[in-house]
Each structure stands twice: as structure tokens, then as C-alpha cells.
């Protein structure tokens, strides 16, 4: 499903954090979102779909670091230095077909209360939509994402995000290509190096909960284990 949950996750988790403890919130706005990299694995087994993501963010520019400092905004998350070190987040998505409808569409609740649907469109696209549940029982569309597979190894994802009165708030543009396992992990290594991500910040943070991911020591191995989960047999 081309679950582009990352941005939506940040929105929702920020809301959740607001109502729990603001201090648990990690400010990933300290990193540039104009251009970053995604490492995504996906797999289907029966009626189940799994996706595991690692997103890597380059260091902020020195100019942006100064600007954020002058505004008294946080400039870094983790152990690095603003303008020098990038960072990473991990995301997970598991979905099962919960209803039997036209053609293997998925419906379900994300995080237990957020309705989502994934519908096949034609024979080369999927439409993933996320709704914000309203007190009167209706729902407000907050994300609509189309994934188009143009070839067997190229797909493009564009997501529109909306606020609760239907105004567009952002749009994402993900250009993705399917590669071999070897190329995938080679590029993962290259990005870690070029973004200068410290081992202590590598696959350390769960992008949704904004808490430490997993029980293992953060680092490259943790990234591999996370990404490979897509291919582990379902119990």
C-alpha cells in the first residue's frame, strides 16, 4: 500500500504528545524535509501487507541552524550537532484485509481509532486515504495519497494533506525505484555516510511514538533488522 505514513504520523503523534507530555515530543522540524531519503521494504502474505521504512534526513544548513537558534527553536535531536549531523526515523505499517470488497482493498483503523482505506485504482495505482474521526460519527479526510506504478520498478507517490476544514496543508512527492537487496543496503550505507548520521541516532527513534525503537542498541544492525521484518513469516 504505499503507506506514506511518515508525515501523517508526525501530525498525529504530535497531537497525542500534546495531550500527554510535550516534553516527550522530539522536534524533527530541526531537519530539512525538502529533500530526504526513504528506504522501504514491503511484502504481502495472504491477506496481510507489511511495510517497514527507514527515513533519513540530511543535516540542516548552517543558515537554518542560526535561524532556529534565533527563534529559540530546537536545532537537533539526539547526539549530533546542527548543521553537521543528519538523523533518522523508523516507521512500520501492518494491514490486513478486514472486509471483503471489490478487489483486495484494505480497510482498518490506524492506531486503533483513525480510519484508513486503501483501494486499488485501475490496474496500476492505489489510493490510500486517512480520515480524522469526528465526534458526530462522521470523518474528515486528512490525507489522500495516490501511488502509481509506472513500471515494475518505478512508482510515484503523491500525498495531499488537509486540515479539519478541508484546506490543503502540504503535499509530498516521493519518487521510488525498486532495487536489488544488495543495492538497497549499499545505498543505505552511502546515505548514512553522506548525511553523517551518528550510530547512536541510527534507527533509534520510532517515528510514530517518538520513543526509542526496539530494545536493541541503535545502529546499522538495528536498521537492517527493522527493514527485514517485512519478509519474516507471519505467525
Amino acid at each position, binding site marked *: 500500500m504505499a503507506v506514506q505514513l511518515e508525515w501523517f504520523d508526525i501530525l498525529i503523534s504530535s497531537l497525542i504528545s500534546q495531550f500527554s507530555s510535550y516534553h516527550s515530543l522530539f522536534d524533527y522540524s530541526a531537519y*530539512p524535509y*525538502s529533500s530526504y531519503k526513504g528506504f522501504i521494504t*514491503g511484502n504481502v502474505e495472504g491477506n496481510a501487507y507489511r*511495510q517497514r521504512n527507514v527515513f533519513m534526513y540530511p543535516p540542516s544548513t548552517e543558515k537554518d541552524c542560526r535561524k532556529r537558534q534565533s527563534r529559540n527553536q530546537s536545532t537537533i535531536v539526539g547526539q549530533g550537532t546542527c548543521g553537521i549531523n543528519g538523523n533518522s526515523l523508523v516507521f512500520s505499517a501492518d494491514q490486513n484485509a478486514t472486509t*471483503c470488497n471489490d478487489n483486495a482493498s484494505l480497510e482498518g483503523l490506524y492506531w486503533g481509532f483513525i480510519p484508513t482505506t486503501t483501494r486499488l485504482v485501475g490496474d496500476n495505482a492505489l489510493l490510500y486515504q486517512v480520515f480524522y474521526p469526528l465526534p458526530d460519527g462522521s470523518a474528515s479526510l486528512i490525507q489522500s495519497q495516490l501511488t502509481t506504478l509506472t513500471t515494475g520498478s518505478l512508482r510515484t507517490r503523491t500525498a495531499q494533506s488537509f486540515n479539519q476544514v478541508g484546506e490543503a496543508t502540504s503535499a509530498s512527492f516521493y519518487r521510488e*525505484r525498486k532495487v536489488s537487496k544488495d543495492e538497497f543496503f549499499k545505498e543505505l550505507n552511502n546515505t548514512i555516510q553522506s548525511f553523517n548520521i551518528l550510530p547512536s541516532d541510527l534507527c533509534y527513534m520510532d517515528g510514530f511514538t517518538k520513543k526509542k525503537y526496539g530494545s536493541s542498541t541503535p545502529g546499522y544492525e538495528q536498521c537492517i533488522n527493522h527493514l527485514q521484518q517485512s519478509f519474516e513469516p507471519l505467525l
Partner: protein
Amino acid sequence: MCCPEETTTNAHLITTVQPNDRSIITIRSFSIVISILLACIVGSDQDIYDLPQRFFGDIKDISCQQDTSTSLQRDECDPKDVVLADHRQWRGEVGYWLGELSLYQSDGSPNESADWRKLFLFDITPN
């Protein structure tokens, strides 16, 4: 894949067929009348509405494509039996993907420093 033959009823026909598909209505209504007569003559204990499906299966398919939201159709399917890999899009999801990612603000400009706190109506900036 989820268009059970047994669930079509008159009510279903009325709700699913579009106004410009009067010909389908006519043919299907005719087929139901035929099937009632056949059921009476043959004495079959089958649901009389099964018979038009056997005779006019292609029409049933058209109707099924028009309506994908009717619960009558879904009730006959077990979600556990869905095989995602039967569909090209789901098969396409399998594997290792590298992504070049960008985010844009509501005015179309690149989001150099994402401030998700402004994306919702209420301000969650701490006091």
C-alpha cells in the same frame, strides 16, 4: 472477486444500476420473470434469483462493477481468503524500494524546515 452470485435481489438492482442503464434493468427484469416461470415449471427449490445469474452471468458482472459498496456483496466473502498477491498493485509492493522524498507547503514552496505544529488548526506550541 467478491461478487457472490447469490446476493442479487430486486432491491439490489434498483440501487446499483444507473439511470442510463435502462437496458440492463429491462434485460434483468425479463430474466427474473423467466426464472420465476422456470422455477415454477421445474419445481426447483433453488432461490429463484439464482437462475438469472446462470443465464446472464455477463450482466451480473457489469452490475457488480458498478456497485462496490453494497454490504450484500461483502457478506459472502471471508477477508481471510483474500490473496493480495493476486493483484498486480500488491505484488508490486513486494521488495526493496529507494525513495527520493520531498515535502511541499500549502503554497507549493519546498518545505525547508517542516513545522508540523502549524499543520493543524490548533496551535500545539508550548506556552
